[in-house]
Protein backbone atom coordinates (compact mmCIF):
# COMPACT_ATOMS: atom_id res chain seq x y z
CA UNK A 1 0.00 0.00 0.00
CA UNK A 2 1.47 3.25 -1.10
CA UNK A 3 0.39 6.57 0.26
CA UNK A 4 1.15 9.87 -1.27
CA UNK A 5 0.38 13.43 -0.36
CA UNK A 6 0.69 16.02 -3.06
CA UNK A 7 0.96 19.81 -2.87
CA UNK A 8 -2.80 20.13 -2.84
CA UNK A 9 -3.06 18.08 0.35
CA UNK A 10 -0.43 20.27 1.97
CA UNK A 11 -2.14 23.48 0.89
CA UNK A 12 -5.55 22.34 2.05
CA UNK A 13 -4.08 21.19 5.35
CA UNK A 14 -2.69 24.71 5.82
CA UNK A 15 -6.13 26.08 5.11
CA UNK A 16 -7.76 23.73 7.67
CA UNK A 17 -5.04 24.60 10.16
CA UNK A 18 -5.49 28.33 9.73
CA UNK A 19 -9.25 28.04 10.15
CA UNK A 20 -8.83 25.82 13.24
CA UNK A 21 -6.36 28.21 14.87
CA UNK A 22 -8.29 31.40 14.08
CA UNK A 23 -11.90 30.34 14.49
CA UNK A 24 -12.14 27.02 16.32
CA UNK A 25 -9.48 27.27 19.01
CA UNK A 26 -10.67 30.59 20.47
CA UNK A 27 -14.11 29.15 21.35
CA UNK A 28 -13.12 25.55 22.16
CA UNK A 29 -13.05 26.01 25.95
CA UNK A 30 -16.29 28.00 25.95
CA UNK A 31 -18.34 25.49 23.94
CA UNK A 32 -17.01 22.73 26.19
CA UNK A 33 -17.93 24.62 29.33
CA UNK A 34 -21.40 25.61 28.14
CA UNK A 35 -22.15 22.45 26.14
CA UNK A 36 -22.85 24.75 23.21
CA UNK A 37 -23.10 23.51 19.62
CA UNK A 38 -20.84 25.88 17.59
CA UNK A 39 -23.37 26.87 14.93
CA UNK A 40 -21.32 29.86 13.77
CA UNK A 41 -18.32 27.72 12.91
CA UNK A 42 -20.44 25.04 11.25
CA UNK A 43 -21.77 27.78 8.95
CA UNK A 44 -18.23 28.95 8.18
CA UNK A 45 -17.11 25.38 7.48
CA UNK A 46 -20.06 24.92 5.12
CA UNK A 47 -19.05 28.06 3.26
CA UNK A 48 -15.47 26.82 2.87
CA UNK A 49 -16.54 23.38 1.64
CA UNK A 50 -15.41 21.46 4.73
CA UNK A 51 -18.69 19.57 4.94
CA UNK A 52 -18.36 17.92 1.52
CA UNK A 53 -14.69 17.10 1.12
CA UNK A 54 -14.61 13.50 -0.24
CA UNK A 55 -17.54 13.77 -2.65
CA UNK A 56 -17.58 14.49 -6.39
CA UNK A 57 -18.38 18.00 -7.59
CA UNK A 58 -21.35 16.52 -9.40
CA UNK A 59 -23.02 16.10 -6.01
CA UNK A 60 -21.91 19.43 -4.62
CA UNK A 61 -18.70 18.12 -3.07
CA UNK A 62 -15.21 19.50 -3.51
CA UNK A 63 -13.86 16.53 -5.46
CA UNK A 64 -11.06 15.96 -2.93
CA UNK A 65 -10.39 12.62 -1.27
CA UNK A 66 -10.63 10.78 2.03
CA UNK A 67 -7.03 11.63 2.92
CA UNK A 68 -7.78 15.35 2.78
CA UNK A 69 -11.01 14.76 4.71
CA UNK A 70 -9.10 12.87 7.42
CA UNK A 71 -6.56 15.70 7.59
CA UNK A 72 -9.37 18.20 8.01
CA UNK A 73 -10.84 16.27 10.97
CA UNK A 74 -7.31 15.92 12.36
CA UNK A 75 -6.56 19.66 12.15
CA UNK A 76 -9.89 20.61 13.73
CA UNK A 77 -9.45 18.02 16.50
CA UNK A 78 -6.00 19.32 17.39
CA UNK A 79 -7.76 22.31 18.93
CA UNK A 80 -11.35 21.11 19.40
CA UNK A 81 -12.45 17.47 19.23
CA UNK A 82 -16.11 18.52 19.34
CA UNK A 83 -15.77 20.37 16.03
CA UNK A 84 -13.86 17.39 14.61
CA UNK A 85 -16.66 14.95 15.35
CA UNK A 86 -19.36 17.27 13.99
CA UNK A 87 -17.62 17.12 10.60
CA UNK A 88 -16.85 13.41 10.90
CA UNK A 89 -20.40 12.29 11.81
CA UNK A 90 -21.90 14.50 9.11
CA UNK A 91 -19.51 13.36 6.39
CA UNK A 92 -18.84 9.71 7.15
CA UNK A 93 -22.09 8.64 8.74
CA UNK A 94 -24.73 10.54 6.80
CA UNK A 95 -23.44 11.92 3.50
CA UNK A 96 -21.27 8.86 2.75
CA UNK A 97 -23.99 6.15 2.98
CA UNK A 98 -26.29 8.30 0.83
CA UNK A 99 -23.45 8.67 -1.69
CA UNK A 100 -22.63 4.94 -1.62
CA UNK A 101 -26.14 3.45 -1.46
CA UNK A 102 -28.49 6.22 -2.58
CA UNK A 103 -30.40 6.39 -5.83
CA UNK A 104 -29.70 9.27 -8.21
CA UNK A 105 -32.84 11.03 -6.94
CA UNK A 106 -31.83 10.53 -3.30
CA UNK A 107 -28.38 11.94 -4.02
CA UNK A 108 -29.83 15.02 -5.69
CA UNK A 109 -32.36 15.58 -2.95
CA UNK A 110 -30.24 14.78 0.11
CA UNK A 111 -26.54 14.52 -0.73
CA UNK A 112 -26.28 17.91 -2.43
CA UNK A 113 -27.60 19.93 0.56
CA UNK A 114 -25.37 17.85 2.84
CA UNK A 115 -22.14 18.37 0.88
CA UNK A 116 -22.82 22.08 0.49
CA UNK A 117 -23.38 22.27 4.23
CA UNK A 118 -26.81 23.77 3.74
CA UNK A 119 -28.04 20.93 5.94
CA UNK A 120 -26.24 18.94 8.61
CA UNK A 121 -26.48 15.15 8.74
CA UNK A 122 -26.53 12.41 11.39
CA UNK A 123 -26.76 8.63 11.62
CA UNK A 124 -28.97 6.58 13.92
CA UNK A 125 -28.09 2.96 14.69
CA UNK A 126 -27.55 2.86 18.46
CA UNK A 127 -30.48 2.22 20.80
CA UNK A 128 -30.65 1.68 24.53
CA UNK A 129 -30.55 -2.07 23.89
CA UNK A 130 -28.56 -2.17 20.67
CA UNK A 131 -25.24 -0.72 19.67
CA UNK A 132 -22.50 -3.17 18.86
CA UNK A 133 -25.29 -5.76 18.71
CA UNK A 134 -27.15 -4.24 15.77
CA UNK A 135 -29.73 -7.03 15.57
CA UNK A 136 -30.95 -6.17 19.07
CA UNK A 137 -32.67 -3.03 17.93
CA UNK A 138 -36.31 -2.36 18.52
CA UNK A 139 -37.03 0.45 16.11
CA UNK A 140 -39.33 -1.03 13.51
CA UNK A 141 -40.39 0.11 10.07
CA UNK A 142 -43.69 -1.20 8.73
CA UNK A 143 -44.58 -1.11 5.06
CA UNK A 144 -47.91 0.69 4.67
CA UNK A 145 -48.13 0.39 0.92
CA UNK A 146 -47.24 3.89 -0.21
CA UNK A 147 -45.11 4.79 2.82
CA UNK A 148 -43.19 3.39 5.80
CA UNK A 149 -44.14 3.91 9.41
CA UNK A 150 -41.27 4.00 11.92
CA UNK A 151 -41.67 3.45 15.65
CA UNK A 152 -38.93 3.33 18.28
CA UNK A 153 -36.04 5.44 19.52
CA UNK A 154 -32.32 5.93 19.03
CA UNK A 155 -29.82 7.18 21.57
CA UNK A 156 -26.38 8.82 21.71
CA UNK A 157 -26.86 10.28 18.21
CA UNK A 158 -24.06 12.68 17.29
CA UNK A 159 -25.41 15.87 15.61
CA UNK A 160 -28.88 14.79 16.80
CA UNK A 161 -30.90 17.99 16.99
CA UNK A 162 -28.91 20.36 14.77
CA UNK A 163 -29.00 17.80 11.92
CA UNK A 164 -31.83 18.00 9.42
CA UNK A 165 -31.14 14.76 7.53
CA UNK A 166 -30.80 11.41 9.29
CA UNK A 167 -29.83 7.95 8.08
CA UNK A 168 -31.84 5.64 10.36
CA UNK A 169 -31.62 1.89 10.77
CA UNK A 170 -34.80 -0.02 11.63
CA UNK A 171 -36.03 -3.62 11.67
CA UNK A 172 -38.12 -4.48 8.65
CA UNK A 173 -38.11 -8.25 9.33
CA UNK A 174 -37.55 -9.15 12.97
CA UNK A 175 -37.26 -12.87 12.21
CA UNK A 176 -34.16 -12.38 10.08
CA UNK A 177 -31.99 -10.62 12.67
CA UNK A 178 -29.16 -8.69 11.00
CA UNK A 179 -30.66 -9.59 7.63
CA UNK A 180 -33.94 -7.97 8.56
CA UNK A 181 -32.58 -4.45 9.08
CA UNK A 182 -33.16 -1.65 6.53
CA UNK A 183 -31.80 1.88 6.23
CA UNK A 184 -33.98 4.97 5.69
CA UNK A 185 -33.38 8.64 5.01
CA UNK A 186 -35.45 10.61 7.51
CA UNK A 187 -35.93 14.36 7.47
CA UNK A 188 -36.22 16.22 10.74
CA UNK A 189 -39.52 17.66 9.53
CA UNK A 190 -41.22 14.29 8.93
CA UNK A 191 -44.39 13.87 11.02
CA UNK A 192 -43.81 11.67 14.05
CA UNK A 193 -40.09 12.44 14.31
CA UNK A 194 -38.75 14.31 17.31
CA UNK A 195 -35.48 14.92 19.10
CA UNK A 196 -35.51 13.75 22.72
CA UNK A 197 -33.10 14.08 25.60
CA UNK A 198 -29.81 15.88 25.08
CA UNK A 199 -27.00 13.91 26.74
CA UNK A 200 -24.69 15.63 29.21
CA UNK A 201 -21.30 14.19 28.49
CA UNK A 202 -17.82 13.91 29.97
CA UNK A 203 -16.13 15.10 26.77
CA UNK A 204 -16.82 16.42 23.26
CA UNK A 205 -19.35 18.60 25.03
CA UNK A 206 -19.64 21.09 22.16
CA UNK A 207 -21.08 18.37 19.92
CA UNK A 208 -24.76 17.55 20.20
CA UNK A 209 -25.58 14.03 21.37
CA UNK A 210 -29.28 13.32 21.54
CA UNK A 211 -32.05 10.80 21.63
CA UNK A 212 -34.24 10.48 18.52
CA UNK A 213 -37.89 9.45 18.88
CA UNK A 214 -40.12 7.96 16.17
CA UNK A 215 -43.83 7.85 16.93
CA UNK A 216 -45.73 6.65 13.89
CA UNK A 217 -43.17 8.56 11.87
CA UNK A 218 -44.18 8.61 8.22
CA UNK A 219 -41.32 8.06 5.80
CA UNK A 220 -41.96 8.13 2.04
CA UNK A 221 -41.48 4.86 0.18
CA UNK A 222 -38.64 6.30 -1.90
CA UNK A 223 -36.61 7.05 1.23
CA UNK A 224 -35.52 3.46 1.73
CA UNK A 225 -31.72 3.67 1.45
CA UNK A 226 -30.21 0.68 -0.33
CA UNK A 227 -32.17 -2.51 -0.72
CA UNK A 228 -34.80 -3.83 1.65
CA UNK A 229 -33.27 -5.83 4.51
CA UNK A 230 -29.77 -4.77 3.46
CA UNK A 231 -29.45 -2.14 6.19
CA UNK A 232 -26.88 -4.10 8.17
CA UNK A 233 -24.56 -3.93 5.19
CA UNK A 234 -25.24 -0.17 4.86
CA UNK A 235 -24.39 0.25 8.53
CA UNK A 236 -21.21 -1.83 8.43
CA UNK A 237 -19.84 -0.14 5.31
CA UNK A 238 -20.72 3.25 6.79
CA UNK A 239 -18.97 2.46 10.07
CA UNK A 240 -15.88 1.17 8.23
CA UNK A 241 -15.47 4.59 6.64
CA UNK A 242 -16.48 6.41 9.82
CA UNK A 243 -13.56 4.82 11.62
CA UNK A 244 -11.15 6.74 9.41
CA UNK A 245 -12.77 10.02 10.45
CA UNK A 246 -12.72 9.14 14.12
CA UNK A 247 -9.20 7.75 13.97
CA UNK A 248 -8.24 11.15 12.51
CA UNK A 249 -10.07 12.83 15.39
CA UNK A 250 -8.12 10.74 17.93
CA UNK A 251 -4.88 11.50 16.08
CA UNK A 252 -5.63 15.22 16.17
CA UNK A 253 -6.39 15.15 19.91
CA UNK A 254 -3.00 13.50 20.61
CA UNK A 255 -1.13 15.95 18.39
CA UNK A 256 -2.90 18.91 19.95
CA UNK A 257 -2.09 17.69 23.45
CA UNK A 258 1.59 17.17 22.59
CA UNK A 259 1.80 20.68 21.05
CA UNK A 260 0.31 22.24 24.21
CA UNK A 261 2.66 20.22 26.39
CA UNK A 262 5.80 21.12 24.43
CA UNK A 263 4.90 24.78 24.89
CA UNK A 264 4.23 24.35 28.61
CA UNK A 265 7.34 22.35 29.54
CA UNK A 266 9.56 24.99 27.97
CA UNK A 267 8.05 27.66 30.22
CA UNK A 268 7.34 25.91 33.49
CA UNK A 269 10.26 25.90 35.91
CA UNK A 270 10.89 23.64 38.87
CA UNK A 271 14.14 23.28 40.85
CA UNK A 272 15.65 26.10 38.77
CA UNK A 273 15.19 24.33 35.45
CA UNK A 274 12.46 24.19 32.86
CA UNK A 275 10.50 20.94 32.81
CA UNK A 276 11.87 20.43 29.30
CA UNK A 277 15.35 20.06 30.78
CA UNK A 278 14.39 16.99 32.80
CA UNK A 279 15.06 13.67 31.16
CA UNK A 280 11.71 12.28 32.25
CA UNK A 281 9.97 15.02 30.27
CA UNK A 282 12.18 14.43 27.24
CA UNK A 283 11.57 10.67 27.27
CA UNK A 284 7.84 11.08 27.78
CA UNK A 285 7.60 13.51 24.86
CA UNK A 286 9.75 11.29 22.64
CA UNK A 287 7.63 8.22 23.32
CA UNK A 288 4.37 10.10 22.76
CA UNK A 289 5.62 11.66 19.53
CA UNK A 290 6.81 8.31 18.16
CA UNK A 291 3.53 6.57 19.03
CA UNK A 292 1.48 9.41 17.54
CA UNK A 293 3.50 9.39 14.33
CA UNK A 294 2.88 5.63 14.06
CA UNK A 295 -0.85 6.19 14.54
CA UNK A 296 -0.77 8.92 11.90
CA UNK A 297 0.71 6.57 9.31
CA UNK A 298 -2.03 4.03 9.99
CA UNK A 299 -4.77 6.66 9.69
CA UNK A 300 -3.40 8.04 6.42
CA UNK A 301 -2.84 4.53 5.08
CA UNK A 302 -6.46 3.61 5.75
CA UNK A 303 -7.66 6.82 4.06
CA UNK A 304 -5.44 6.21 1.04
CA UNK A 305 -6.64 2.61 0.76
CA UNK A 306 -10.23 3.85 0.67
CA UNK A 307 -9.29 6.43 -1.97
CA UNK A 308 -7.59 3.72 -4.04
CA UNK A 309 -10.74 1.53 -3.76
CA UNK A 310 -8.69 -1.14 -2.04
CA UNK A 311 -10.00 -3.17 0.91
CA UNK A 312 -9.68 -0.97 3.98
CA UNK A 313 -11.92 -2.49 6.66
CA UNK A 314 -9.08 -4.01 8.66
CA UNK A 315 -6.82 -0.98 8.12
CA UNK A 316 -9.53 1.41 9.31
CA UNK A 317 -10.14 -0.74 12.39
CA UNK A 318 -6.42 -0.83 13.17
CA UNK A 319 -6.13 2.93 12.64
CA UNK A 320 -9.03 3.59 14.99
CA UNK A 321 -7.84 1.10 17.62
CA UNK A 322 -4.30 2.46 17.71
CA UNK A 323 -5.16 6.16 17.34
CA UNK A 324 -7.87 6.02 20.02
CA UNK A 325 -5.72 4.16 22.54
CA UNK A 326 -2.90 6.58 21.78
CA UNK A 327 -5.14 9.62 22.28
CA UNK A 328 -6.17 8.45 25.74
CA UNK A 329 -2.63 7.49 26.65
CA UNK A 330 -1.03 10.69 25.34
CA UNK A 331 -3.53 13.08 26.92
CA UNK A 332 -3.16 11.32 30.30
CA UNK A 333 0.63 11.52 30.13
CA UNK A 334 0.54 15.14 28.96
CA UNK A 335 -1.70 16.06 31.88
CA UNK A 336 0.79 14.40 34.21
CA UNK A 337 3.54 16.65 32.80
CA UNK A 338 1.33 19.68 33.38
CA UNK A 339 0.86 18.61 37.01
CA UNK A 340 -1.73 20.50 39.05
CA UNK A 341 -2.22 23.20 36.42
CA UNK A 342 -3.17 20.53 33.91
CA UNK A 343 -6.02 19.47 36.18
CA UNK A 344 -7.49 22.98 36.08
CA UNK A 345 -9.54 24.51 33.30
CA UNK A 346 -6.92 27.21 32.87
CA UNK A 347 -5.22 24.91 30.36
CA UNK A 348 -6.87 22.84 27.59
CA UNK A 349 -5.18 19.59 28.56
CA UNK A 350 -7.93 18.31 30.90
CA UNK A 351 -10.50 18.94 28.14
CA UNK A 352 -8.36 17.01 25.70
CA UNK A 353 -8.11 14.11 28.15
CA UNK A 354 -11.91 14.06 28.59
CA UNK A 355 -12.42 14.31 24.83
CA UNK A 356 -9.98 11.49 24.08
CA UNK A 357 -11.87 8.81 26.02
CA UNK A 358 -14.86 8.71 23.69
CA UNK A 359 -12.67 7.76 20.74
CA UNK A 360 -12.17 4.35 22.40
CA UNK A 361 -15.94 3.91 22.66
CA UNK A 362 -17.99 5.33 19.81
CA UNK A 363 -18.35 4.06 16.26
CA UNK A 364 -17.14 0.71 17.50
CA UNK A 365 -15.36 0.28 20.82
CA UNK A 366 -11.72 -0.74 20.86
CA UNK A 367 -12.95 -4.26 21.59
CA UNK A 368 -15.05 -4.22 18.41
CA UNK A 369 -12.03 -3.03 16.42
CA UNK A 370 -10.12 -6.03 17.75
CA UNK A 371 -12.96 -8.31 16.63
CA UNK A 372 -12.82 -6.77 13.14
CA UNK A 373 -9.03 -7.03 12.93
CA UNK A 374 -8.79 -10.60 14.21
CA UNK A 375 -11.82 -11.61 12.16
CA UNK A 376 -9.94 -10.65 9.01
CA UNK A 377 -6.85 -12.51 10.26
CA UNK A 378 -8.58 -15.75 11.11
CA UNK A 379 -11.14 -16.14 8.36
Amino acid at each position, binding site marked *: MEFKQDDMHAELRN*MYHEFAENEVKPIAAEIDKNERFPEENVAKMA*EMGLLGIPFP*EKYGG*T*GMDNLSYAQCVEELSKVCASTGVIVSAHTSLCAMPIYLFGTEEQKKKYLVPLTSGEKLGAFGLTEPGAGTDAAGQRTVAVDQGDHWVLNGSKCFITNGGPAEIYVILAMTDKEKGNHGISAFIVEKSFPGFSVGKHEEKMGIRGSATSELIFEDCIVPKENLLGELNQGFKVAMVTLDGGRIGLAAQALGIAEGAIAETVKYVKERKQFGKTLAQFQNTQFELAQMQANTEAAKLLVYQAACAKDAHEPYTQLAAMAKLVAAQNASDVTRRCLQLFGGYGYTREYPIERMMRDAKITEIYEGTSEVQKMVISGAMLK
Partner: protein
Amino acid sequence: MNICVCIKQVPDTTEIKIDPVKHTLIREGVPSIVNTYDTYALENAARIKDAAPDTKIVVISMGPEQAKNALKECLAIAADKAYLITDRVFGGSDTLATSYILSEAIRYVETQEGKFDMIFCGKQAIDGDTAQVGPEIAEHLDYPQVTYALEAVIDGESLRVTQQGPEEKQVIGVEIPCVVTFTQPPFDVRYPTIRRKMAANKAQIPSVTSAELAGIDVARCGLKGSPTHVKSTFVPVHESKLVLVKEETVEDSAKKLIGLLSDAHVI
Protein backbone atom coordinates in the same frame (compact mmCIF):
# COMPACT_ATOMS: atom_id res chain seq x y z
CA MET B 1 -18.20 46.26 -12.44
CA ASN B 2 -14.59 45.53 -13.30
CA ILE B 3 -12.21 45.82 -10.37
CA CYS B 4 -8.42 45.64 -10.36
CA VAL B 5 -6.81 44.78 -7.01
CA CYS B 6 -3.08 45.45 -6.66
CA ILE B 7 -1.35 43.15 -4.20
CA LYS B 8 2.15 42.56 -2.90
CA GLN B 9 3.76 39.41 -1.59
CA VAL B 10 5.52 40.24 1.66
CA PRO B 11 7.36 38.30 4.35
CA ASP B 12 5.14 37.49 7.33
CA THR B 13 6.33 40.28 9.60
CA THR B 14 5.08 38.49 12.70
CA GLU B 15 7.91 36.02 12.12
CA ILE B 16 10.60 38.31 10.74
CA LYS B 17 13.98 39.08 12.27
CA ILE B 18 16.62 41.60 11.29
CA ASP B 19 20.28 40.65 10.89
CA PRO B 20 21.96 42.66 13.66
CA VAL B 21 25.18 43.07 11.68
CA LYS B 22 24.02 43.66 8.11
CA HIS B 23 20.76 45.40 9.12
CA THR B 24 18.88 43.52 6.42
CA LEU B 25 15.80 41.34 6.74
CA ILE B 26 16.53 37.68 7.38
CA ARG B 27 14.21 36.12 4.82
CA GLU B 28 15.32 32.50 5.07
CA GLY B 29 12.59 30.32 6.49
CA VAL B 30 10.16 33.22 6.76
CA PRO B 31 6.85 32.42 5.09
CA SER B 32 5.53 34.81 2.44
CA ILE B 33 1.97 36.08 2.66
CA VAL B 34 -0.29 38.45 0.79
CA ASN B 35 0.16 41.90 2.33
CA THR B 36 -2.54 42.14 4.99
CA TYR B 37 -3.93 45.50 3.82
CA ASP B 38 -4.19 44.15 0.28
CA THR B 39 -6.41 41.35 1.56
CA TYR B 40 -8.76 44.06 2.88
CA ALA B 41 -8.88 45.57 -0.62
CA LEU B 42 -9.64 42.11 -2.05
CA GLU B 43 -12.35 41.46 0.54
CA ASN B 44 -13.99 44.76 -0.33
CA ALA B 45 -13.94 43.83 -4.01
CA ALA B 46 -15.47 40.46 -3.08
CA ARG B 47 -18.26 42.24 -1.18
CA ILE B 48 -19.03 44.34 -4.23
CA LYS B 49 -19.15 41.11 -6.22
CA ASP B 50 -21.47 39.52 -3.61
CA ALA B 51 -23.92 42.35 -4.26
CA ALA B 52 -23.37 42.41 -8.06
CA PRO B 53 -22.35 38.88 -9.14
CA ASP B 54 -21.40 39.90 -12.69
CA THR B 55 -18.48 41.87 -11.22
CA LYS B 56 -15.03 40.73 -12.34
CA ILE B 57 -12.07 40.91 -9.97
CA VAL B 58 -8.60 40.97 -11.54
CA VAL B 59 -5.63 40.85 -9.22
CA ILE B 60 -2.16 42.01 -10.25
CA SER B 61 1.20 41.96 -8.52
CA MET B 62 4.68 43.12 -9.40
CA GLY B 63 7.37 40.77 -8.18
CA PRO B 64 9.43 37.67 -8.88
CA GLU B 65 7.99 34.37 -10.14
CA GLN B 66 7.26 33.21 -6.59
CA ALA B 67 4.72 36.05 -6.20
CA LYS B 68 2.42 33.81 -8.25
CA ASN B 69 1.78 31.96 -4.99
CA ALA B 70 0.34 35.15 -3.52
CA LEU B 71 -1.78 35.65 -6.63
CA LYS B 72 -3.06 32.07 -6.31
CA GLU B 73 -4.01 32.80 -2.73
CA CYS B 74 -6.11 35.72 -4.00
CA LEU B 75 -7.71 33.49 -6.66
CA ALA B 76 -8.60 31.03 -3.87
CA ILE B 77 -10.28 33.79 -1.86
CA ALA B 78 -12.19 35.81 -4.46
CA ALA B 79 -10.29 36.90 -7.58
CA ASP B 80 -11.35 35.78 -11.07
CA LYS B 81 -8.12 36.46 -12.94
CA ALA B 82 -4.51 37.17 -12.00
CA TYR B 83 -1.48 38.69 -13.74
CA LEU B 84 2.12 38.76 -12.57
CA ILE B 85 4.09 41.84 -13.62
CA THR B 86 7.67 40.68 -13.71
CA ASP B 87 10.91 41.69 -15.40
CA ARG B 88 14.52 42.06 -14.34
CA VAL B 89 14.42 45.75 -15.29
CA PHE B 90 11.68 46.26 -12.67
CA GLY B 91 13.95 45.01 -9.85
CA GLY B 92 14.97 47.52 -7.19
CA SER B 93 12.06 49.88 -7.92
CA ASP B 94 11.11 52.34 -5.22
CA THR B 95 7.51 53.47 -4.77
CA LEU B 96 7.65 56.00 -7.63
CA ALA B 97 8.97 53.46 -10.13
CA THR B 98 6.65 50.73 -8.80
CA SER B 99 3.57 52.90 -9.16
CA TYR B 100 4.65 53.92 -12.66
CA ILE B 101 5.11 50.27 -13.71
CA LEU B 102 1.81 49.24 -12.10
CA SER B 103 -0.10 52.03 -13.82
CA GLU B 104 1.37 50.95 -17.17
CA ALA B 105 0.53 47.33 -16.31
CA ILE B 106 -3.06 48.31 -15.47
CA ARG B 107 -3.37 49.91 -18.92
CA TYR B 108 -2.04 46.71 -20.50
CA VAL B 109 -4.30 44.39 -18.47
CA GLU B 110 -7.25 46.58 -19.50
CA THR B 111 -6.55 45.59 -23.12
CA GLN B 112 -7.11 41.95 -22.04
CA GLU B 113 -9.84 42.32 -19.42
CA GLY B 114 -11.67 45.52 -20.36
CA LYS B 115 -11.55 48.91 -18.69
CA PHE B 116 -11.41 48.90 -14.89
CA ASP B 117 -14.02 50.85 -12.96
CA MET B 118 -11.88 50.94 -9.87
CA ILE B 119 -8.37 50.14 -8.72
CA PHE B 120 -8.17 48.85 -5.13
CA CYS B 121 -4.96 48.74 -3.11
CA GLY B 122 -3.99 48.14 0.50
CA LYS B 123 -3.13 51.42 2.21
CA GLN B 124 0.46 50.28 2.60
CA ALA B 125 2.66 47.19 2.57
CA ILE B 126 3.53 45.78 5.96
CA ASP B 127 7.21 45.43 4.97
CA GLY B 128 7.83 48.92 3.55
CA ASP B 129 5.09 50.90 5.31
CA THR B 130 5.29 53.87 2.93
CA ALA B 131 1.58 54.12 1.90
CA GLN B 132 2.72 55.79 -1.33
CA VAL B 133 2.10 53.29 -4.14
CA GLY B 134 -1.72 53.50 -4.20
CA PRO B 135 -1.88 57.31 -4.29
CA GLU B 136 0.89 57.43 -6.89
CA ILE B 137 -0.97 54.99 -9.16
CA ALA B 138 -3.93 57.39 -9.01
CA GLU B 139 -1.66 60.27 -10.03
CA HIS B 140 -0.13 58.30 -12.92
CA LEU B 141 -3.58 57.34 -14.17
CA ASP B 142 -5.02 60.78 -13.37
CA TYR B 143 -7.86 59.19 -11.37
CA PRO B 144 -9.54 60.55 -8.23
CA GLN B 145 -8.51 58.70 -5.09
CA VAL B 146 -9.68 57.95 -1.58
CA THR B 147 -7.16 56.64 0.94
CA TYR B 148 -7.63 54.88 4.30
CA ALA B 149 -10.96 53.39 3.26
CA LEU B 150 -12.82 51.09 5.62
CA GLU B 151 -15.46 50.15 3.11
CA ALA B 152 -16.48 51.07 -0.43
CA VAL B 153 -19.92 50.34 -1.86
CA ILE B 154 -21.42 51.00 -5.27
CA ASP B 155 -23.84 53.91 -5.22
CA GLY B 156 -25.39 54.28 -8.65
CA GLU B 157 -22.66 55.40 -11.02
CA SER B 158 -20.20 56.30 -8.29
CA LEU B 159 -18.56 54.77 -5.26
CA ARG B 160 -19.45 55.61 -1.66
CA VAL B 161 -16.37 55.22 0.53
CA THR B 162 -16.26 55.22 4.32
CA GLN B 163 -12.91 56.69 5.23
CA GLN B 164 -11.09 56.40 8.54
CA GLY B 165 -10.04 59.90 9.54
CA PRO B 166 -7.60 60.69 12.36
CA GLU B 167 -10.41 60.71 14.90
CA GLU B 168 -13.66 60.22 13.05
CA LYS B 169 -15.04 58.45 10.03
CA GLN B 170 -16.27 60.27 6.99
CA VAL B 171 -18.25 59.15 3.98
CA ILE B 172 -16.98 60.32 0.61
CA GLY B 173 -18.60 59.96 -2.80
CA VAL B 174 -16.14 59.44 -5.62
CA GLU B 175 -16.64 59.21 -9.38
CA ILE B 176 -15.47 56.11 -11.17
CA PRO B 177 -12.92 55.22 -12.43
CA CYS B 178 -11.02 55.83 -9.22
CA VAL B 179 -8.35 54.47 -6.92
CA VAL B 180 -9.16 53.44 -3.33
CA THR B 181 -6.64 52.31 -0.70
CA PHE B 182 -7.92 50.26 2.22
CA THR B 183 -7.15 50.03 5.89
CA GLN B 184 -8.48 47.40 8.31
CA PRO B 185 -12.25 47.13 7.91
CA PRO B 186 -14.73 46.23 10.65
CA PHE B 187 -15.32 42.84 8.98
CA ASP B 188 -13.11 39.77 8.50
CA VAL B 189 -11.51 38.72 5.25
CA ARG B 190 -13.25 35.56 4.02
CA TYR B 191 -11.49 32.21 4.00
CA PRO B 192 -10.68 30.49 0.74
CA THR B 193 -12.99 27.63 -0.21
CA ILE B 194 -11.64 24.19 -1.04
CA ARG B 195 -13.07 24.36 -4.54
CA ARG B 196 -11.56 27.77 -5.29
CA LYS B 197 -8.28 26.64 -3.77
CA MET B 198 -8.14 23.63 -6.09
CA ALA B 199 -9.03 25.75 -9.12
CA ALA B 200 -6.42 28.37 -8.13
CA ASN B 201 -3.80 25.67 -7.86
CA LYS B 202 -4.38 24.73 -11.48
CA ALA B 203 -4.69 28.31 -12.77
CA GLN B 204 -2.20 29.51 -15.35
CA ILE B 205 -1.11 33.01 -14.36
CA PRO B 206 0.25 35.07 -17.28
CA SER B 207 3.55 36.89 -16.73
CA VAL B 208 3.60 40.43 -18.12
CA THR B 209 7.10 41.77 -18.91
CA SER B 210 8.36 45.12 -20.17
CA ALA B 211 8.00 43.71 -23.70
CA GLU B 212 4.18 43.63 -23.32
CA LEU B 213 4.01 47.10 -21.83
CA ALA B 214 4.17 49.09 -25.07
CA GLY B 215 5.61 52.55 -24.61
CA ILE B 216 6.96 51.98 -21.09
CA ASP B 217 10.01 54.10 -20.38
CA VAL B 218 12.51 51.66 -18.83
CA ALA B 219 14.55 54.61 -17.56
CA ARG B 220 11.69 55.22 -15.11
CA CYS B 221 11.79 51.57 -13.90
CA GLY B 222 13.94 49.68 -11.43
CA LEU B 223 16.91 51.19 -9.64
CA LYS B 224 17.51 53.68 -12.49
CA GLY B 225 14.03 55.12 -12.13
CA SER B 226 14.10 55.25 -8.34
CA PRO B 227 15.09 58.54 -6.71
CA THR B 228 14.76 57.02 -3.22
CA HIS B 229 17.97 55.74 -1.68
CA VAL B 230 18.04 53.96 1.64
CA LYS B 231 20.95 55.33 3.66
CA SER B 232 20.72 52.73 6.39
CA THR B 233 18.29 50.53 8.24
CA PHE B 234 18.50 49.70 11.91
CA VAL B 235 16.57 48.10 14.70
CA PRO B 236 15.59 50.71 17.28
CA VAL B 237 17.08 49.78 20.62
CA HIS B 238 14.64 50.01 23.49
CA GLU B 239 16.43 50.38 26.80
CA SER B 240 14.83 50.50 30.18
CA LYS B 241 16.54 51.07 33.48
CA LEU B 242 15.39 51.46 37.01
CA VAL B 243 16.31 54.40 39.25
CA LEU B 244 15.34 54.18 42.89
CA VAL B 245 14.64 57.49 44.60
CA LYS B 246 14.77 57.25 48.33
CA GLU B 247 15.73 60.44 50.20
CA GLU B 248 15.43 61.22 53.90
CA THR B 249 11.88 62.54 53.62
CA VAL B 250 9.02 61.99 51.19
CA GLU B 251 9.21 65.66 50.21
CA ASP B 252 12.89 65.35 49.35
CA SER B 253 12.17 62.20 47.33
CA ALA B 254 9.49 64.05 45.40
CA LYS B 255 11.84 66.99 44.69
CA LYS B 256 14.57 64.63 43.52
CA LEU B 257 12.14 62.73 41.29
CA ILE B 258 10.86 65.93 39.71
CA GLY B 259 14.44 67.00 39.06
CA LEU B 260 15.26 63.69 37.41
CA LEU B 261 12.14 63.71 35.25
CA SER B 262 12.77 67.29 34.27
CA ASP B 263 16.38 66.56 33.31
CA ALA B 264 15.18 63.64 31.20
CA HIS B 265 12.69 65.98 29.48
CA VAL B 266 9.81 63.77 30.57
CA ILE B 267 8.06 66.68 32.28
